[in-house]
């Protein structure tokens, strides 16, 4: 095995595994380092919503591109990862929320995304299982859901099949600049690797990796509290959300209803997170409030995982403001799953072509003022 690669990726979540595949498809030699297992953190344990609707304008171009990839997963990686365009219905509690939805519909339209505005009586007719307490909603038919457990490993498998070297259970001891790129020393003592380009997709630990090169941003962690019920006959069609966030609900093809609300506890140092019973209780109440039929359905499991969060709730994506050949994508703030496939495509373009056709200017790291590292 050559100890020299065009690209090294730190972090085997969905963004990292997709980058590995896309960079390899462009002809680069690629090595990916993951300290645990690919898809073992946020990518594998999130809610599984695949939606463009409701996103910040700075993400919409990226989200649009990702949707295209979601629709062609079968061709790209040989499996659809249970992606289904079941639609995404965002509900409004009040008339003020409805105005926001209408404004958002126009914004989506500018990016070629179609959404229908539904009044209360449309909701009652089309989605009779909803409690009748909503002023209306916005329905985006091409949004949907997928099984998060499958996606990052499937990208990793496809990348590996094309010759990407994937080193799981491999921590990085040192990653540093070298004359014509970077040198990476694995913690297991295996030989150092030289690369031309380095891509940081380390998720909740992305700011830590960035800091190794002097790119200083504040990233905190969060752990969305997730719940799943026993399988029930098909009831809920679209992936459900609500203005202002809080509860989100979807029913998977095999019948389980997956919902989330609130946050569990995350410990980035210990690499672990756990759901909170109090939050699970609140989520259960919110789920029953949204879909009363769920009252007598059994809750089977709750879980969570660690995600990185940026101060403005938007990810960092793009070239390092200070180091040539270094690229970052982290801090997806609880909504990176849908974006993941396109993040990989964009990073492959940025690192190999020097540019991308996707508008990501609103996600650059330098939108944050550099901050001084507090003395230890």
């Amino acid at each position, binding site marked *: 095995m050559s100890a020299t690669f065009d690209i090294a990726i730190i972090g085997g979540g969905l963004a990292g595994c997709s980058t590995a595949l896309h960079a390899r498809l462009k002809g680069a030699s690629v090595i990916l380092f993951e300290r645990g*297992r690919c898809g073992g953190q946020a990518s*594998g344990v999130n809610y599984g919503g695949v939606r463009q609707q409701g996103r910040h304008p700075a993400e919409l171009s990226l989200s649009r591109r990702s949707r295209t990839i979601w629709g062609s997963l079968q061709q790209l990686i040989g499996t659809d990862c249970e992606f289904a365009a079941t639609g995404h219905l965002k509900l409004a509690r009040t008339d003020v929320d409805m105005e926001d939805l209408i404004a958002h519909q126009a914004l989506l339209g500018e990016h070629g995304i179609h959404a229908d505005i539904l009044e209360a009586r449309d909701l009652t007719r089309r989605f009779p299982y909803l409690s009748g307490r909503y002023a209306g909603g916005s329905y985006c038919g091409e949004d949907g859901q997928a099984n998060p*457990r*499958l996606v990052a*490993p499937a990208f990793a*498998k496809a990348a590996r099949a094309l010759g990407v070297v994937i080193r799981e259970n491999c921590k990085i001891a040192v990653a540093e600049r070298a004359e014509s790129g970077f040198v990476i020393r694995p913690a297991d003592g295996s030989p150092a690797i030289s690369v031309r380009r380095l891509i940081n997709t380390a998720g909740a630990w992305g700011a830590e990796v960035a800091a190794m090169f002097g790119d200083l941003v504040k990233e905190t962690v969060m752990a969305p509290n997730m719940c799943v*019920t*026993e*399988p029930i006959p098909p009831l809920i069609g679209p992936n459900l959300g609500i203005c202002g966030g809080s509860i989100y609900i979807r029913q998977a093809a*095999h019948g389980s209803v997956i919902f989330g609300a609130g946050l569990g506890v995350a410990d980035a140092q210990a690499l672990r997170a756990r*759901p*909170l*019973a109090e939050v*699970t*209780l609140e989520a*259960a*109440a919110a*789920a*029953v409030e949204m879909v009363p039929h*769920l*009252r*007598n*359905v*059994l*809750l*089977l*499991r*709750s*879980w969570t995982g660690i995600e990185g969060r940026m101060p403005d709730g938007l990810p960092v994506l793009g070239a390092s403001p200070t180091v040539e050949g270094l690229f970052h994508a982290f801090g997806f703030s609880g909504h990176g799953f849908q974006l993941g496939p396109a993040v990989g495509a964009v990073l492959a373009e940025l690192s190999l072509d020097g540019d991308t056709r996707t508008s990501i200017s609103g996600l650059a790291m330098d939108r944050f003022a550099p901050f001084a590292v507090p003395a230890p």
Partner: protein
Amino acid sequence: MSTTAVIIGAGPAGMAAAEILVHAGLHPTILDEGDQPGGQIFRKPQAQLQRPLEKLYGFDAARARRVNATFASLRSKIDYRPGTQVWAAGNEILHLIDDSGSSVQAWTHLIVAPGAMDRIAPVRGWTAAGLYSLGGAQIALKAEAAVIGRRVIFAGSGPLLYLVAYQYAEAGVDVAAVLETGHPFAQIARLPALLSGGRLFARGLFYMAALRKRGIPILTGVRLQEVIRDSDDRVTALSFRHRGMEQVESCDAVALGHGLRSETQLADLLDIEFSFDAVQRQWLPKTDQDGRSTASNIYLAGDGLSVRGSEIAEASGRLAASALLHDIGLPAPSKVERDRRTMRSAARFREALEHAFAYPHEEVAALPDDVVVCRCEGLSAGAIRQTVERCGEADINRVKAFCRVGMGRCQGRLCGAAAAEIVAAASGTTIESVGRMRGQAPIKPIPLAELVRSRP
């Protein structure tokens, strides 16, 4: 800081622990899933079905009487919460659910004694109506005064097989056969260890003799083949191989069980470390000889720590309570050394039992591809093997994530042991190295509306 001692489980271990704590002047809280104290072993029928203790518990009637008397004497000195399920555990808080809704219970010291449940080795057709777990069949008899069928086959392995078959025969049920998959008498070398079980071993022989006297065939070294079903998916017969011969025995119900497995989800949620027990082929919470876990102020006792039967459970409950008292600086009234000796000699007997009535892991690992293993998710042995092969995975949690084995209503309790054997064999590794399915709250499934309802 004052001590809030909480005991989970009012079986023999939990009750013995409570008795020690009360005698030391504490006022423990006992949280119990059951509606009455006694655990599974001393499970009582509802009031209108009350029968004499001798009928209910046989040889254990005297102990049952003593447990009842002990409980009566403790009743006013403990906060007894029957019908209470612990569904999650947080930072020195337990999350509870009972008939009136959800609530929380704080603790400073916790004794965890959740007991055990049936260990099942799947066999072709085992999802048929009329097939019950052995423990389930016994509970039907004890608690409901009901039987699972008119002509019943008892199949599987372990002492409970003979006891329940005997109880069913006594209740007037036509016991068609007792089919033991182990070779309990093939290992003469272990006989001394088995004999060290003394009374327990003698009882096993008594049940066998009583069954034989009734003309009920007891076959050992049996290989179960298929639970045969009619078009309504009801059990009609069981086919098996014995001494190289294929046989079919007709019946309308089967009680299936291969010993017991410890309930460990709560220990998992409490962040206690586990170690692999090669004898029981299960991951068990780590403790010292008295039941101190690796988490501070948490103690384990009874079959939830390691399956050793109800008498040993009592000793382990006393030890856990004594350890707790020691840790808060109170003298323990128990004869600790005597209980430790009991535990040590019991370990030898239980190990011999596990060898005599071993889980048929080779048969499970070799189950044909089309046999259902995970009944909640409808997954066959072949589907699990394909996942191992397709993903190159030998980690039970990854296999679970990829194919959903153990994700259904039983949360892996019923299928987990078998799935681990299949994954290990398919990936050419040991059952220890496939790891253990992680526990996740709720510990048992709960309707959303029940969770939402707060205790007034």
